[in-house]
């Protein structure tokens, strides 16, 4: 069970060590100590390993993650799990702006709150936030699912494509072309799974959520508007 002291060895040594893990490895459990809010901790990992960061992180922690399970025992700075491809990232504390931005796959779990622009331009990632999210979250979100146990800030899902948004608390305002939609049995089933994967099944039930999605009026060309172009 390797332990890596970021304070002693630095970020480049850490990330090159983690990048060198390919395919099968015996070293599947990693502990990173002394993160001290550093940037880009465990960014670009492409191996099925478990990494625990003991403390809070700065910008872009676990960015571009593939396969790995990365847990932050603290809070995460801007852009945690940005462009994640697969795997799981769990933040025990809060996340700063644009958590999970442009994520293509995998699961991002934030046990505290996420601030503005959570899941902006998400493209397949699943995001479960136990607390609340800030303004402009899921802006231009294309696919994937976002589950929020708390409240959502202003302009949720502005210019939304086909991502599904589930919010249990209040939504301060919906962005352009984002509307509330009917919760059908398949959505409740999906939520059940997401809550369970997001370690939130003990905290919330699928029936407590409302579903939001795209009205599909903004991104579909409407022939009646042809003269406007």
């Amino acid at each position: 069970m390797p332990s890596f002291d970021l304070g002693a060895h630095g970020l480049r040594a850490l990330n090159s060590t983690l990048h060198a893990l390919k395919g099968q490895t015996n070293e599947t459990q990693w502990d990173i100590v002394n993160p001290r809010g550093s940037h880009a901790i465990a960014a670009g990992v492409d191996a099925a390993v478990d990494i625990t960061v003991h403390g809070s992180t700065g910008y872009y922690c676990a960015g571009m993650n593939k396969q790995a399970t990365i847990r932050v025992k603290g809070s995460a700075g801007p852009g945690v799990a940005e462009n994640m491809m697969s795997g799981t990232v769990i933040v025990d504390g809060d996340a700063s702006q644009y958590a999970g931005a442009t994520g293509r796959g995998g699961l991002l779990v934030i046990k505290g709150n996420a601030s503005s622009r959570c899941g902006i331009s998400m493209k397949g990632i699943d995001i479960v936030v136990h607390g609340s999210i800030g303004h402009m979250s899921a802006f231009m979100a294309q696919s994937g699912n976002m589950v929020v146990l708390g409240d959502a800030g202003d302009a949720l899902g502005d210019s939304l494509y086909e991502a599904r948004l589930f919010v249990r608390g209040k939504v301060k305002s919906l962005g352009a072309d984002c509307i509330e939609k009917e919760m059908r049995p398949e959505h409740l089933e999906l939520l059940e799974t997401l809550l369970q994967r997001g370690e939130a099944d003990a905290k919330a039930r699928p029936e407590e959520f409302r579903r939001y999605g795209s009205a599909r009026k903004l991104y579909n060309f409407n022939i009646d508007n042809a003269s406007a172009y």
Partner: protein
Amino acid sequence: MCGIVGLFLKDPSLEPKLGAMLADMLVTMTDRGPDSAGIAIYSGARDGIGKITVQSAQPEADFRNLDEDLRNAIGQPVLLLRKSTHAVLEVPIGQIEAARSALAHLRPGVKIMSVGDSIEIFKEVGLPKDVAARFAVAQMKGSHGIGHTRMATESAVTTMGAHPFSTGSDQCLVHNGSLSNHNSVRRDLIRAGMAFETENDTEVAAAFLSHKMDEGAGLGEAMEATLTDLDGFFTFVVGTRNGFGVVRDPIACKPAVMAETDQYVAFGSEYRALVDLPGIENARVWEPEPATVYFWER
């Protein structure tokens, strides 16, 4: 991009360490602003003493006998404490205005950084660690302080373009971001009688707050007004004689982290800046909400 750090102490026992803590925080934010750095420190008021912090590009010539020349001009005792390119002039509090006008006449090349009974501002171009060292920031004591590392966007990399900006007695402001309506606000403020030293957008924000407070607004009220009257990107950290405030624009893309314990309130552009503060592991750490004014007074 710029870096901001701030520390407002609630526990007087930390006051001797204020400069050391702030200097460490400032140097940590070097990546965010290697062009220049500055610090405003509220070292505490002493009965009847006013302080003018001045800067000169020719400190040897300008500061030589400045205390004597000023004493002769205002007919009152003057104490000069030189720190590199800056000097703090202590004069009787009632003589600040007289000393100011005498200075303009006696040493035209000297710039005024701050005026008040507690505030001292030190700022220069260069790496934050060099700036902190030349002013011996780590040895400074005080109740609260604000530091800034600058990556310039809106005006030249000069001493006067560095932050903090002070446009009123014991007031200062630092800024991460850029304002888009600073020219029109500056024109309005000039008409209202405010004076400007630079073309810098941040100086306009500082003067805007000073003007509001001159008109009778409290710190919180003045900061609220920035949300309606200033357009652009901003995270502001503001100091007054006994206050410390933070406000971010409604879009809030300029980063900010705050921490509070029984001993202090701290601000950092990034969490990195806060990691060595005492008791940080048990502090309440949060990201200030957009378009929300936070302030503390003691």
